[in-house]
């Protein structure tokens, strides 16, 4: 006893120091007294210079870090918008000395000017970092000319912008030096912005204009003289430009530098892909599915360690409910459509994290990753802050005047009226100071190594509110971890010391590259570090983030590794150098050695699937109806169901034929397969009319037992259809024995009460004829009132009557399977706000036995059910496609999403209110404007945005009204594989890549011929509420099965599969005895892939 006590005591003593360190946050804010950095970006607002006069007044100042005197310590330069800039010499140990005036008096910037970004780069290739300062502001041209300070080598500088041809007078945000033409010297991209927002959206003519002050510029370096080559290079220079962020990277890994430019307001961001001939192609709409709307800073880095650069753009979406309600813009579908029609693409107000798929496409997964809402944000930086081998994410934010506050908008009007009444002059400053200041806490997210991040604001010690602008990371004290430097408005710049090494004794490797003359710091080099069995990838491009310029050395955290097994450097001239067994914890300097030339793009590998064009020429056209005009508070639209197809052999020639449903411009048709493998339209059969009833699903089956395939067409759609009218009545077409299909008008009972989702033929009563399940999706105009579903019993002659079925819910999909092995097929179905449900089929009827067969069955927003044997035991397993995790909603058993509905105001319309937890409280999704439009008396209840901002359902409705409302819920949004193990289903969520998007269809097959079932998951759902935005991160997700119910993601480069858009139909089709996968994409067409 005594002995053990002593041992225990010793143990505690031993642990104490590290325990204490573990309790300290990762970052420690250093005092100005300790660092000697007493810089503040002070904004003095006056009656003449305020945000009403200059809208970019609070965009903040820049910061650059770099070793100006080559003493191994990174020095810091801050720009102040109005006051003097300051240069600080790093003296080691986080102590700095201000040397601005000694270095060059003009470094302080021109008096009365407006200074913005700052860049350190060796512009003249002499091995010393020079300083380039940008100017903007509504001042004179002369006050706005950017300055270039050439480093004289003795910590003094001489201003030479004019001599170098870089004294540009534009409204500049930031400049970046990089080698765009691979000629070995550094050229410059200058990011500019307009100073007057253009509200008029008839943009065509603005696009052709060149605005030399607002448009961005590319300058080519010819022996230290720079020439504007923008026009020749294809740089967009129109007055719509509002450049706020700029990052350079080799996005497509072809050995040439590409450029990402963010634009504030309406203009979409630009992605300039290098054409290798001195020109660029703007290609953003090809690579990305949607963009940040009010894009601010941008960073490009490989955050998931797959060797491909990913893109992060920032916007203004707050994380908390209150600020969302106060600031969020009203959904305006006309504006959104107008922007799309003006080629402004799909833009939403939130941060976007674009994951590089390696095939030229990106999946935007910011919501899944947990980084989409960081409020009014400026500077994103990917950096491994905890040295664990994965890049974390730091984001600055804050705004001096919160003029997006919607109450303020109305306040201004009242203020003017009040002043007029009081006969007092309107004072802009009175108005300016009435705007609330938005002091925010910067965000820092830890990379969880699984594509997601977790918020570490508190744990890592970055919990002080402020108004932060530019930021850089740098190992200022050379202790092996990255410190943070943040330029702030109206308070001293923050220096955060990183204690990662002290705390956790982590390893690192810092690389300093010495490039060839002309590009002495090897800007544009790529470094691959292999350690601990993993890969890390960085590109040396210091101009990233926002108004900021990073040091020229590359920092890699190595976690517990004691060495990097190898380090591969691809120099800017695309030659490779390989270092092996590089010891950790050192600052390694590597000189250019001139190794072998690296081929720019990887050799094409063989893939599992390959697209086949030209077999079925079918383009799908969507009418473009907006369902939210009918019920604005739904989450999704229901009109878009096409293209619908189904296969069957209509002429009994042994070849699979197709029915393809009608669309906006074409009727439904039978496509008959010819022996040649071509498909010919059967002109005798026109099944449904263009722009008529909507086809939701179809199935071939032999209804009358004559041995020929008949066709059932289920009607769906939403916007313009009324329940109980003929446009919602399903149709049965009987085969005339010659492959022609003829309507059988009396075959079906009245099925027009709702819009349908699916039809599933099956002989449910084992009487030898085929019966049907027809799933009800939604009642047009009455969402989310439960629609009926039907069991249709066949009398053997192809005439059907409805039989009772206890199904409740908005059904999206169903399958028949004999789960209890009694010889009768049971019904599995799924839908919105319901569990995947099992109805056992017994002679006395169907009954819900879900809980007996499923260990765990969440309520989801399910879109699809697929049966497949994933573990090879001969039993049906279930792939259930859900909404996925890449949405604004976070739900769980404990914090479910809830939908309340009732006709609260008794005006004859259903009022549905979706609620979701945000930071621990369930809030309604509906905005104050939407609520007021839905229930007019609410205008009286919540007379301001502030009054509504914290409201929950209990504040909106009294308890008795709330009690009358119907309720539905969702407890999980993940897609699952339910594996049948000895008659019971165990739930396992599909891998994270499968949760990027909605799964609307799944094809199960052995694509890699290893004898195990693989899955091809298809989906997306673009037609949602604008607040939700387009859900479109899937290009088809191929999962390789291990034969026991586990799956791993196969990237598109290996799968060969990449298809953008909303998949509405999918199946396998045999053409000339070869297996093909057939996929219908809404408003695009039908695509075929051949299984290799």
């Amino acid at each position, binding site marked *: 006893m005594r002995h053990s006590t002593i041992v225990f005591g010793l143990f505690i003593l031993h642990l104490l120091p590290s325990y204490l360190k573990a309790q300290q946050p990762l970052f420690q804010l250093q005092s100005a007294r300790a660092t000697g950095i007493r810089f503040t970006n002070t904004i003095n607002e006056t009656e003449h210079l305020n945000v009403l006069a200059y*809208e970019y007044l609070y965009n903040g100042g820049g910061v650059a870090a770099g070793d100006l005197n080559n003493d191994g310590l990174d020095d810091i330069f801050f720009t102040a918008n109005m006051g003097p800039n300051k240069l600080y010499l790093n003296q080691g140990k986080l102590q700095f000395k201000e040397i601005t005036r000694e270095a060059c008096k003009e470094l302080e910037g021109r008096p009365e000017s407006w200074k913005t970004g700052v860049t350190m780069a060796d512009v003249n290739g002499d091995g010393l970092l020079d300083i380039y300062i940008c100017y903007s502001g509504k001042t004179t041209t002369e006050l706005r000319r950017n300055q270039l300070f050439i480093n004289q080598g003795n910590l003094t500088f001489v201003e030479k912008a004019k001599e170098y041809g870089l004294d540009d007078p534009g409204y500049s945000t930031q400049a970046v030096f990089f080698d765009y033409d691979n000629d070995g010297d550094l050229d410059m991209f200058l990011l500019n912005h307009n100073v007057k*927002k253009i509200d*008029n959206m008839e943009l065509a003519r603005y696009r052709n204009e060149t605005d030399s002050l607002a448009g961005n510029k590319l300058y080519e370096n010819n022996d230290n003289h720079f020439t504007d080559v923008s026009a020749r290079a294809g740089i967009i220079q129109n007055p719509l430009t509002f450049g706020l962020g700029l990052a350079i990277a080799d996005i497509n890994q072809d050995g040439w530098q590409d450029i990402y430019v963010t634009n504030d307001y309406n203009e979409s961001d630009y992605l300039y892909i290098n054409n290798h001939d001195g020109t660029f192609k703007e290609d953003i709409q090809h690579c990305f599915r949607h963009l940040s709307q009010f894009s601010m800073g941008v960073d490009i880095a490989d955050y998931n360690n797959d060797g491909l650069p990913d893109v992060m753009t920032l916007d203004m979406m707050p994380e908390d409910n209150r600020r969302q309600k106060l600031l969020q813009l009203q959904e305006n579908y*006309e504006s959104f459509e*107008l922007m799309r029609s003006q080629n402004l693409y799909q833009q939403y107000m939130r941060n976007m994290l674009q994951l590089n798929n390696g095939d030229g496409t990106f999946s935007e997964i910011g919501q899944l990753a947990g980084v989409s809402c960081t409020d009014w944000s400026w500077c994103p930086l990917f950096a491994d802050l905890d040295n664990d081998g994965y890049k974390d994410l730091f984001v600055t934010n804050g705004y001096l005047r919160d003029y997006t506050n919607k109450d303020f908008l109305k306040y201004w*009007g009242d203020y003017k009226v009040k002043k*007029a009444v009081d006969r007092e002059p309107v004072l802009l400053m009175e108005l300016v100071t009435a705007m609330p200041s938005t002091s925010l806490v910067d965000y820092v997210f830890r990379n969880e190594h699984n594509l997601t991040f977790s918020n570490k604001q508190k744990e890592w010690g970055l919990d002080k509110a402020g108004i932060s602008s530019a930021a850089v990371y740098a190992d200022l004290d050379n202790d092996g971890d990255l410190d943070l430097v943040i330029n702030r408005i109206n308070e001293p710049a923050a220096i955060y010391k990183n204690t990662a090494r002290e705390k956790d004794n982590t390893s690192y490797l810092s690389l300093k590259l010495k490039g060839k003359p002309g590009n002495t710091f090897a800007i544009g080099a790529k470094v691959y570090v292999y350690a601990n069995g993993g890969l890390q990838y960085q590109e040396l491009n210091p101009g990233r983030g926002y108004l900021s310029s990073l040091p020229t050395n590359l920092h890699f955290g190595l976690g517990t590794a004691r060495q990097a097994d190898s380090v591969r450097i691809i120099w800017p001239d695309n030659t490779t150098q390989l270092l092996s067994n590089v010891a950790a914890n050192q600052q390694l300097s590597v000189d250019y050695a001139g190794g072998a030339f690296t081929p720019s793009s990887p050799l094409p590998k063989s893939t599992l699937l390959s697209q086949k064009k030209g077999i079925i020429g079918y383009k799908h056209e969507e009418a473009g109806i907006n369902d939210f005009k009918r019920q604005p508070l739904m989450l999704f639209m229901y009109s878009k169901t096409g293209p619908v197809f189904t296969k069957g052999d209509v002429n009994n020639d042994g070849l699979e034929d197709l029915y393809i449903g009608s669309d906006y411009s074409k009727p439904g048709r039978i496509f008959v397969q010819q022996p040649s493998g071509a498909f010919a339209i059967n002109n005798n059969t026109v099944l449904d009319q263009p722009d008529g009833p909507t086809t939701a699903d179809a199935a071939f089956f032999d209804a009358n037992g004559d041995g020929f395939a008949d066709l059932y067409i289920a009607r769906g759609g939403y916007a313009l259809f009324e329940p109980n009218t003929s446009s919602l009545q399903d149709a049965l077409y009987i085969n005339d024995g010659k492959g022609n299909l003829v309507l059988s008008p009396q075959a079906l009972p009245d099925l027009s009460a709702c819009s349908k989702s699916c039809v599933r033929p099956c002989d449910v009563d084992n009487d030898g004829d085929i019966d049907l399940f027809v799933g009800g999706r939604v009642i047009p105009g009455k969402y989310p009132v439960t629609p009926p579903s039907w069991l249709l019993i066949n009398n053997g002659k192809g005439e059907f009557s409805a039989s009772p079925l206890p199904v409740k819910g908005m059904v999206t999909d169903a399958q028949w399977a004999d789960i209890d092995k009694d010889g009768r097929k049971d019904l599995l179905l799924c839908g919105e706000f319901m569990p995947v449900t099992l109805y056992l089929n017994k002679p006395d009827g169907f009954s819900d036995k879900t809980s007996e067969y499923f260990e765990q069955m969440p309520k989801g927003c399910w879109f699809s059910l697929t049966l497949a044997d994933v573990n090879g035991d001969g039993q049906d397993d279930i792939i259930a496609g859900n909404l996925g995790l890449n949405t604004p909603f976070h739900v769980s058993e404990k914090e479910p999403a809830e939908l309340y509905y009732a006709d609260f105001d008794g005006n004859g319309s259903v009022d549905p209110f979706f609620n979701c937890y945000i930071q621990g409280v369930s809030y309604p999704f509906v905005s104050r404007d939407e609520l007021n439009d839905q229930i*007019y008396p609410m*205008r009286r209840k919540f*007379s301001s945005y502030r009054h509504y901002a914290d409201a929950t359902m209990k504040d909106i409705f009294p308890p008795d009204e709330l009690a009358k409302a119907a309720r539905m819920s969702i407890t999980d949004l993940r897609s699952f594989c339910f594996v049948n193990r000895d008659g019971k289903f165990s739930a396992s969520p599909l891998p994270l890549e499968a949760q990027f998007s909605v799964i609307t269809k799944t094809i199960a097959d052995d694509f890699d011929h290893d004898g195990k079932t693989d899955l091809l998951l298809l989906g997306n759902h673009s037609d949602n509420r604008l607040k939700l935005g387009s859900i479109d991160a899937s290009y088809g997700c191929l999962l390789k099965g291990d034969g026991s119910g586990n799956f791993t993601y196969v990237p598109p480069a290996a799968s060969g599969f990449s298809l953008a858009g909303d998949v509405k139909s999918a199946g396998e089709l045999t053409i000339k005895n070869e297996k093909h996968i057939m996929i219908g994409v809404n408003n695009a067409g039908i695509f075929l892939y051949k299984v290799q």
Partner: protein
Amino acid sequence: MRKWFLGLFLLCQVGYAQQPAADFRDHVQPAVFALTMVMLHDVVNPPAASRFYAYSLAGAYEIVAINNRGIARGSSFMKSSPHVVINAKPGSYNYRIAALYCILETGRLMLPSGFMLEEHQEKLLKTLKKEKVKTAVIDSAVAVAKAVALQVVNWSKSDNYGRLSTRLRYTPVKGEAYWYPTPPAYMEAVEPHWKIIRPMIIDTCDEFTPLPPVPFSRDTTSEFYALSKEVYAVSLHPSQEELNIASFWDCNPFAVSTAGHMAIGFKKITPGGHWMNIAGIAAEKAGLDFDRSVLVHTLTAMAETDAFISCWDEKYRSNRIRPETFINRYIDIKWKPLLQTPPFPEYTSGHSVMSTAAARVLTYLLGDHFAFTDDSEVMFEIPARSFSSFMQAANEAAISRLYGGIHYRDAIENGQDQGKKIGDRIVEKLKKAGLQPLIP
């Protein structure tokens, strides 16, 4: 600045205290103006504003009519009327206090920020007490007012306003001839289903369908192009007088001005609110007593309401493109109208229809040559303007839309014609009901 104006904003008590206790005639206008200020705060759109005025005054009118046999009950000329029943016997309560209070009480119950009127109600009661009106008299009148206001609110519930939100939301009609949201805010169309609102006096929304608009054409020799060109040409070299007229009748309740992320709303009184002011100015100038002042205000509000219902029916029948959109697309991309284009289709001009209808009714009641000075816009730093008659003011309001660059000439002229027919039908019904001109 006018006395009522000061009275309301600086010291309401002063305004009330100056009046002899017996009549209360000078309290009518301030009560109506109090509604205007709440609507200004709430940014109530023009058709909805006219409806709020009409309902807020309907109860007061009935109280007056029940107590003054010279004034016809609403049921004798209205399409539907509140059928107000007052349990207290005439003479047992001060009906003028009741009517005054009823204006504020109905507004309080119906307007989004109706609570703001509680302050006015308290001030009114305080003033009455100061004027030595007995508490019992006040109490009985307030009780009547509250009962009548409830009856009015109940009656309002059957006018389909509550059903507006159940209708299919408006989608701009596809095609180059049709209205599309306009800069800078590209706001959604305002009240696309307003035609379903029950009119006050006229029978149906489409009783006075105007002539069809000049057909759309991009052909530079077409009539439509000429109409657009006229709007454009007027804007290039406007005279000072044209500028004054345009801004005087702007009456845009929420013109949005953007500066970067900031969108600032400039508020003004709606066209209907402006004509309510004119009614107040005229009532005072004519020296009308309390009862007749209520009558003038009420009939002006009802004429406005019907004018908007009729006009909005046409707006969403023709769905015509605004000059700003046409000119930007086909004449000058950078052109901006002097006034901000309001967010609804162009044809016919609401101000033209409504001003004309109201002016016809006022002319009937107060005479053809009723000169007055209108200082309604002084609070927005726009000087007062003088007019020799109501129709002159209405004509100026109508043509102001051309000067402002937001309407074509045919929408103005055909709108005036529409307004005239509405006004004349109302007058016809008033005559039938035995309501004689107030100034013979």
